[in-house]
Each structure stands twice: as C-alpha cells, then as structure tokens.
C-alpha cells in the first residue's frame, strides 16, 4: 500500500511537467497515414501538437533536440477497440468495469468515470507503444452497451481525450442473447429503442407511453438521440456475412447513423457491399477459426481482401485480451505484411499495415484530424522504437504523449528486476527494490 502511494505520488510529479517543445531528428520517420517511411526525417512537437514532420524540416531555434540515431519513429499506436482502463484483473470482479449486467441502464452508460489511468494495464500497454485507445463498454443488461471514449495512456490522472465518442451494440449471437433469443428480436428491439428515443426527443411521447417503460431510461434515450442524428458513431459488433448486410440496411430507416463495424469476420464475403456503404471496419485480423457458426468463413486474409476492395480497415486486438495486450496490435499488423507474401493469401503492405493501427482507427472514430498520425495539428504522441515496430520483440525506447515524455517502466519490470537472479540474498526479496 505504501509502495502504491509512493508510486502514484511519483507519477503525479512526472505529470506536472509541462508539454515539452521537442524535435526528434535523424529518424526513420513513419507518418502513419499510409505513406512510406522517410529516412533522415524530423518531427517537431510544440505545445503538445505536431507542427511539422518529414524530411528537410527545420528545427526551430532553442528547441530541445533528440537524435533518434536512424531508428524508427512513429505516431503512437491507437488501440482500435479495447477495454484498457476498465480492467485491472479480469477475474477479480471489483477491478473489472467491462460489463454491467445488472444495471437498469444501457445506452446511457458512460465509461468515462470508470477509467483508471493508474491501473497497471495502462502502463503496460503504453510501454508497448500504445498511446491512444478507443475504449468501448462490454455490455449491459439490455441491447445497447453504452458509450465508450477515446483515451490517452499517459501517466497522469486525465485519461479521457473524448468522452462519449461512440455507442456500442452487438448484433449476431451476442445481440440475440440480449434481445430475447433471436436475430429478429435484436433488429426489432434496436428499431423500437431508437424510435422511442426519437419520439422522446421530439416531446411527442413520454417513454412510458411506449408501453414498456423498462425498455430504456431517460439517460438511454438521450444517448440514442445522438446515435440517430449521427453525432455519436455507432460501433456494431457483427460477424456473419448476412448480419453485416442487414446491419448496413439499418441506414434505410435511420439514414444519419454513423456506422463502424467491429469484428466483421465474414466481411470478405460482402466486401463490395461494405466498400459501397463506405463504412469503416475494425477487425481482429488473425481470426481464422470457425469459433462460432457466425464465423464459418473466418480467414486471416479477411483484412487484406477488405482493404483491396476499398474498405477502410483498422486492426484491433479483441477476441483475445482487450484490456491487457494492446501491444499485440503491432504483431498483428506485422502478420498482415507476412500474409501479403504468402501464396494465395491477402495482407497489406507495411505502410498500410502501420496505418491500420494508427490513422485508420482514428478516422473510424471521427478523430483523424487530431490523433493517429504525425501530420501537423495532431497530438504530439511520438514513439521511438529499437527496431521495426511491426517486428516481433521490438519495443519503444522513448514515448511522448501530448508532447510529454512518458515513463516506460511497469510493475512487471520491477518484478523482473527483483528476480533477475532468483535466489535469496542476505535479506529476503521483499527488501530488494
């Protein structure tokens, strides 16, 4: 306990340091927008924002310079779909704010106050190069899970970049389980709840007059109105090809819906429809097992085929561990590069693969102007890597978030150091720190 207090005090001191104005030079510079790496590149961050990045960028006088020594320098990874900050230990329920299965509320839930920036998963994910994350609630007792946020992973107390940045709902088998047992029930419940919210917003009916005042609460209606009018993107978990097509059709009745599809395991079977709909997708790209009957067509070539069809594809780490292992994003993206070299398979170029874990998720959540790349005006989230960031075992050697230098030390590192030699010394290990 004392130790924890000491650590947090130290972290708070680190936070109080203001954003640095900094120029990182001599970099193998990745902008993150799908363009090729720039040898000998420079990125300049002032006031917490990128002001210039590229070759031949002049370093303003008096600014702190960091020579990257030719190493890879990239924007921070954007975790495309995660629960970082909501969970410390999954199986320890008091530390797990992913789901709210017994609440009366649904769409109105807002994860922002549940986020814990001091949690060890934040530090561990940060140390693997993740600086921002799209965080979605897991589920409620009702169809809609609630409102997620875009967060930063800095070692300070203010984690929220944008609250209520998305609404989450699952269709398919998971949706059926919430809605009463069938896909028909899911689609009808979805429609009824949106119509109830709209009616409520127009003042033309009270929620009670809809005949089922338990269906949604006032707070849920408030949130769903933002979904109907397209202010809040609606992230929809959906995997089966037929379900994908039907979810796209929701816009016939609710044309302003800003859909983002999550999972999309069988997306390649309806790639043309997805491309035509101009709906971004977040995929867990190494899913290749028919884990359920809505994932029969699973293949690791899904992401590559969707990309080739013109779909805006982001790569995430879910159906795996969505709170602790966001660092897998680089490994997964690297696998897409490998797939592109495999006969008959589809993957991505290196530049596309990196963009799928930086600018693409930023674009999916409507924040491409502020996060996810090193183009001028974006947040100063910069990572220096010891090697090719998509290669296995590469690690950041320095990270800035909003222009502030970050600690890369985790609780795991402290354990590692304590047990670098396992035998007891003159005193027990408990005195070794």
């Amino acid at each position, binding site marked *: 306990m004392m130790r924890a207090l000491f650590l947090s005090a130290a972290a708070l001191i680190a936070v109080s340091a203001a954003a640095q104005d900094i120029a990182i030079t001599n970099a193998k510079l990745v902008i993150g927008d799908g363009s090729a790496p720039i040898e000998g590149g420079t990125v300049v961050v002032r006031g917490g924002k990128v002001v210039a990045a590229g070759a031949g960028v002049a370093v303003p006088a008096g600014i702190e310079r960091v020579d990257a020594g030719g190493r890879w320098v990239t924007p921070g990874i954007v975790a495309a779909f995660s629960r970082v900050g909501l969970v410390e230990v*999954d199986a*320890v329920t008091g530390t797990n704010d992913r789901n709210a299965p017994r609440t009366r509320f649904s769409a109105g839930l807002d994860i922002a106050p549940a986020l814990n920036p001091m949690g060890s998963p934040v530090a561990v994910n940060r140390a693997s190069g993740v600086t921002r994350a799209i965080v979605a609630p897991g589920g409620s007792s009702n169809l809609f899970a609630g409102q997620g946020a875009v967060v930063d992973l800095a070692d300070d107390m203010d984690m929220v970049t944008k609250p209520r940045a998305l609404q989450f709902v699952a269709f398919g088998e998971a949706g059926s389980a919430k809605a009463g047992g069938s896909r028909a029930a899911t689609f009808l419940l979805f429609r009824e709840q949106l119509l109830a919210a709209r009616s409520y917003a127009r003042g033309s009916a009270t929620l009670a007059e809809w005949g089922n005042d338990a269906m949604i609460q006032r707070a849920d209606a408030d949130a769903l109105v933002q979904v109907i009018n397209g202010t809040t993107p609606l992230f929809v978990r959906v995997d089966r090809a037929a379900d994908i097509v039907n979810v796209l059709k929701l816009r016939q009745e609710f044309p302003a819906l800003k859909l983002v599809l999550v999972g999309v395991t069988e997306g390649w079977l309806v790639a043309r429809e997805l491309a035509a709909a101009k709906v971004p997708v977040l995929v867990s790209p190494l899913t290749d097992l*028919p*884990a*359920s009957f809505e994932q029969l067509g699973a293949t690791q070539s899904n992401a590559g085929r969707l990309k080739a069809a013109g779909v805006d594809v982001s790569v995430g780490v879910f159906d795996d561990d969505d709170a602790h292992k966001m660092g897998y994003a680089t490994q997964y993206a690297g696998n897409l590069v490998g797939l592109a070299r495999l006969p008959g398979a589809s993957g991505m170029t290196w530049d596309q693969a990196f963009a799928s874990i930086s600018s693409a998720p930023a674009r999916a959540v409507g924040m491409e102007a502020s996060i996810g790349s090193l183009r001028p005006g974006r947040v100063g989230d910069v990572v220096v890597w010891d090697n090719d960031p998509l290669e*296995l*075992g590469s690690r950041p050697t320095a990270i800035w978030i909003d222009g502030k230098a970050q600690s890369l030390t985790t609780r*795991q590192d402290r354990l*590692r150091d304590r*047990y670098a030699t396992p035998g007891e010394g003159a005193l027990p290990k408990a005195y070794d720190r």
Partner: protein
Amino acid sequence: MIRGVKGSLLAAVSLALVGCAASGSEAKSASDKPAAAEKPVKFDKDPYPSTYRPYGGRPTAVRGVTIFDGEGGRIDNGVVLFAGGKVEAVGGADTAIPADFDVIDGSGKFVTPGIIDIHSHLGDYPSPSVEAHSDGNEATSPTTPEVWSEHSVWPQDPGFSRALANGGVTALQVLPGSANLMGGRSITLKNVPSRTVQGMKFPGAPYGMKMACGENPKRVYGGKGRAPSTRMGNFAVNRATWQKAAAYKKKMDDGKAVDRDLAMETLAGVLAGEILVHNHCYRADEMALVIDMSKEFGYKVSTFHHAVESYKIADILAKEGICSAMWADWWGFKMEAYDSVNENIPLVYKAGACTIVHSDDANQIQRLNQEAAKARAAGRRMGIDVSDEQAWTWLSYNPAKALGIGDKTGSLKAGKMADVVLWNGNPFSAYTRPEKVWVDGALMFDAFDPKRRPVSDFELGQPGEGDVK
C-alpha cells in the same frame, strides 16, 4: 473433501465393472481365470492403440537453408535429407545428395523441426466452440484421473489444420482442462488429419496426467459448496487421493488381486513413473508446495504449465529438473496471472531450467514461433544471451523431452522422425510463414499447393471451404 473423493471413486468402480476383461497386446500375461483368482491380474495399458501410420513421401533434400536443429545447433547454407519418414542427414552445403532425392532449393529460407505444443485443447474444446463441443473438463468431481482426454478429442476440429498450416505444429499434447485437481489423462497426437483419434495418436508416447493448482479447482468446487474451496483444500484432496493410490499400487505390487479402478490405475501409473504429470500451476509458492507433495508420495512432475511465476523460483526448478511451459506475455486475466513478466521464459532459460513455449489456445498455437521470438527479444533486452537456435529448443526438443518423445522427434538428427518445417524466412519474424510442413516425411502442407491444405469434414460445403486460413 471426503465427499468429492468418494464420488469419484464410486464412479470409477462402476466403470471398472465393464472394464475388467483384459484384452489386447499387453494383456497376454493376464490370468485365464476370472479376476477373483489369487494370481495378480494385469490390465491392458493400451486398450485404444494408435493406428497412426506415416503417410509416405518422396525422399527429399532441402538445401541452401538455415537450419535450427532443435537441440541448439545451427547450420547456415545447410542441407537436410529425409527419406522413409526419417531424417537421414543434416549437414553443411557439402552434404552429398543422393540422385533419387527430390531437391528443394531453400535459399533465404529456414528449416526447423516441427513445433510441438505441450499444452493444447484442440479436439476436446474444438471449433465451433458450441456447448455441445465442450468436452474438456469433467467438472463433476475435483479428482477425475479416470477420464482420458482422447475420449473427448473430435478429430474434425478445424483447429488442427490451422496449427499445421499457419503454425508448423507437427505434434501436440491434448490435455483435459483445469477445473479439476486431477483432470485425467492427456494424449500426445501427431498433427495429421484422421477419421479417428487413434489415427492421430503418437506411437509409443507415454500417457500424461493433468493436474491443476490454484484458483480453478477451488472456484469450481467451492462454487458448488463442496471441497476444495481453498488452496489448502486443494492440497488436502490431492494428498488423500494420492494416499489411496499408493495403497492401490502397493496391493498390485504385492501381487494381490484388486478390483479394477480406472482412477487408481492412472495414479498408480504416475507413481510407477509410466505416466507423466503435467501440472497447471501459476504461482511460485504453489509450485514449491507441489514439489514437496510429489516427494511425499513418490512421483515426479514433468512440467509446470502456464507457470507465470517460474522466474521467481527458476533456481529450484533447475535443481529439481522440472520443465516450465509458458506464454510469452499473457497476464492479468486472473489473480494468479498478475505477476507475469515478459522475461519469464528467458529467465527460466538463464537459470538452466527446462524452458518450453506453449499455447493453451487454438489461436496462439498458430504462432508459437512468434511467441518465442518475443520472449527471446525480452531476454536480450535484459542482457540474456539467447541465440535463435537456442530459442528453438523451447519449441521442439524441450517439449518433446517433457512428453517422453524426445528420442523420436523434436530435433533434426539422423534416424529421428522427419517432422520438418520449411519456413519462407526467419521463423522469428512476424513476416514469416510455413511454406511446407512434413510429418514423418509426408508432405502434409504446402503453401504453393491448395490440394495440400487439409479441410475437415466440418468445413466441407461451408463458406470459405479450402480457403487460405
């Protein structure tokens, strides 16, 4: 506690009634008379014998490749020869290639022994993971040494083919789950498609027995209002069961007739050293207690599985000669996985203890080479010198030894099974995939030939049949 053990014994006894008539190859010494006779009865130890046969292949030479031989050796610009299902030679560029061998030029590519996953639930928790397929935990009693995982394995699990084609996995151990303290027997399989599990059983591999420490058994049974509900309960139930097994074995050893008891038979096999213990155990302090329990009753733990805290007692594990089967970086999903460190694998390796990378997962079994690469890199960052060829021992030879098949497979040595992977680059790169996989010299996967891509019955006629996966 007593209730749980008794329950399992009653179940085992009732099963034994139909299992008394010994038959099969190893039962020849059994008495002609009924089991009631004074002469000791020997029960068939292999009543579901392997029917696996190598599928045959052309004599093959792969040349110009970088070879990790699985035992820590490396040859650049090397040659691997195999024929008749066996490795014939492994050597440098000057290795003579007989005229009748097919020659594959592997310039820029790598050859390794096939990966062996010591911890899998393929087949007993198959895809699709529907309730009807949930066959991995006989969670009706905390001790079920009488169940055999092979009796749950569905050979049509599409996961086997993914492990082969994407993972270069040529053999694997399928274990019961970890709900029970003693989960039952495990089985080692060749990773080849088959109509029957017998057609996959690794010939001559010893049986294993799954045990589990910690949270899972006490949660499952404590949640049912029965023992064990604590870690001390876990040990009490285990010790009481071992005590019964020791008595059963003594009766057998003394030549006395016993009523056949399938649970006790497995445990007696462990005490006799014929069945290898594979113990799910996360925490260092619990592993140390299990080591003492194994000495109390006279058995040996082959491998601690998951073993996220092995780094805390790597010196003890080295001294005891117990392997650790580990993930590279899984953590935080439960309390006993909270102290995971990325350097666990290299720290165990550095201490000189047996080091294994395992999956416990139908997805990660497809990239165990990548997990080893991450662990290797974490070790190097803290100054532990791990060469690529040494790291490969974590993936093939060490698991083979821990499974009791190290004399047959796991390394590229003349006379051993030709379980071989040709990788299209360095297998410790994210950009690399298996190009060809041979099991006993038979080409079972070829990235260039869609016809050498297994498609399970379940996948026939479904979306994506025969697709790259």
